[in-house]
């Protein structure tokens, strides 16, 4: 039997995290199918079929699949689950929304945010804000897993030629109705996929001061992140929050500026390859996980860094 991966997309584009989820699936079994549920999602299907090493792409289209509503997607996923040993999705806000619902419909206990596959039924996942790694064995007939994208190297986006098979949609349940969406527009790289992330905390003091950080980020072609304190204070948008209850990132370089280093923040960035901290308090806990620490006032350092990178 094969492994099923749920594709993450917005009908126009296949999201890169899908390649990480497929990589986790390949580590379980070579035979991987990708399920695309959406509306007029031709470009997504095309990209999906090109992923290296995917055997089959399943496509279910209906107008009510457009907004990836959990109520509509979950029954379809659950109805296919018996044909597979494992059902996987990336632990994005979408994956976290849909997969538990599908697992419960199939009377299975999902294992969330796995970071390692030990064997077909045994997985590692962080708990307690990443202070502890639990090794968990699943006893369910079908194993539902959400995977932390940063823990698995992506499959190549090209080189495959999977067959595409259309499957029927299920009837709409119409329990909820999509009203509207506001997506932040940004020319910067995506936070979860960027090589360099520059994050700011309460130390920045205002949204105007974040401009200093944006200048640096643009010099480095970096994504921008933030601590919860900076988000709660309204300096930046909520989807920039890095941490236990925000996004988990693991870039090549993470620069924390005016962030103290609470465990909830560390949970979202301590797997980064190189960590730099800039903080005026030499005892700030962030220095305990930093490769390079600079004890200084960020309002002096930020302009100097940006200038010297020009």
């Amino acid at each position, binding site marked *: 039997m094969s492994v099923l991966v749920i594709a993450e997309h917005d009908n126009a584009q296949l999201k890169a995290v899908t390649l990480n989820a497929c990589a986790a699936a390949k580590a379980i079994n070579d035979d991987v199918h990708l399920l695309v549920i959406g509306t007029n999602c031709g470009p997504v299907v095309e990209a999906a079929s090109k992923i290296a090493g995917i055997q089959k792409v399943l496509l279910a289209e209906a107008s009510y699949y457009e907004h990836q509503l*959990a*109520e509509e997607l979950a029954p379809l996923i659950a109805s296919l689950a018996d044909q597979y040993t494992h059902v996987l999705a990336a632990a994005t*806000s*979408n994956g*976290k*929304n*849909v997969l*538990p*619902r*599908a*697992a*419960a*419909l199939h009377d299975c*206990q999902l294992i*969330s*945010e796995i970071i390692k596959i030990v064997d077909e039924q045994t997985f590692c996942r962080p*708990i*307690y*804000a*990443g*202070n*502890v*790694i*639990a*090794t*968990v*064995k699943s*006893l369910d007939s079908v194993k539902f897993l959400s995977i932390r994208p940063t823990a698995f190297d992506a499959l190549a986006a090209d080189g495959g030629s999977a067959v595409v098979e259309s499957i029927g949609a299920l009837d709409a349940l*119409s*329990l*909820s*109705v*999509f*009203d*509207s*969406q*506001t997506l*932040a527009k940004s020319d910067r790289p995506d936070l979860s996929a960027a090589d*360099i992330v520059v994050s700011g905390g309460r130390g920045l003091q205002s949204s105007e001061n974040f401009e200093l950080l944006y200048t640096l980020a643009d010099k480095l072609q970096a994504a921008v992140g933030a601590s*919860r304190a900076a*988000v*709660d204070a309204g300096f930046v948008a*909520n*989807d920039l929050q890095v941490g236990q*209850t925000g*996004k988990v990132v693991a870039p*090549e*370089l993470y620069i924390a500026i005016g962030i103290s280093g609470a465990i*909830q923040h560390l949970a979202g960035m*301590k797997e980064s390859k190189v960590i*730099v901290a800039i903080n005026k308090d030499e005892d700030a806990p962030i*220095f305990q996980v*930093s490769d*390079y*620490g*600079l*004890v*200084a006032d960020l309002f002096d350092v930020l302009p100097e860094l940006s200038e*010297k*990178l020009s």
Partner: protein
Amino acid sequence: MKILVPVKRVVDYNVKVRPSSDGSNVDLTNVKMSINPFCEIAVEEAVRIKEAGNADEIIVLSIGPSKAQEQLRSSMALGADRAVLIETEEALEPLAVAKCIKAIVDKEQVDLIILGKQSIDGDNNQTGQMLAALCGYAQATFASELAVGEGSVRVTREIDGGLETLELKLPAVVTTDLRLNEPRYAALPNIMKAKKKPLEIIALAELGVDTAARTQLLSVAAPEERKAGVKVASVDELLDKLKNEAKVIS
């Protein structure tokens, strides 16, 4: 409208949890326990809905040890009307917890269930979605805004890249994100009043729900610790290290 808020007793968010010496589980002896912060936000939201005249009764529910009565009492001090404890010493998985909550939903005929999006111990982020599946209800996870309408609720959700607004038919399940509200502090008179509010205790076995474990915890371990690196003295030294030692910028 009747609102149900499941609340969980968890290790306080300030505690740094460690594995036990034999690595079989986490060491929770003598650590401070609190109400899960996301559950507290859920209670606060329910109280605000009631204060606005849109709900008649708020029931809080916990599935856990006898001591979870503390968290139920503090939820009632925030404004919940009564509490139910499903008592068990076992650490139940989200699917089992969702089945227990459903038993109470069916019994109490509630219109809206507000849960935390995740608990800060298990970090599962599953229970609300599973409950919605088992009940066949609409769901809105990661809520940052909630407005009660006629037979429906309108919820703004935090999603990757921004915000999304959904309209849910009642009954429905909503899970809270951090920015939904800022919970109040319980005033002393309310803490006293909460001691007299009804708290029903039901033994897990009485519910007749299948809570058999579907997973087995094999071991727990501390993650690989990062070593603290070096302090640099200037921006120039920092840039030099990043270029020539770490080679992460060019």
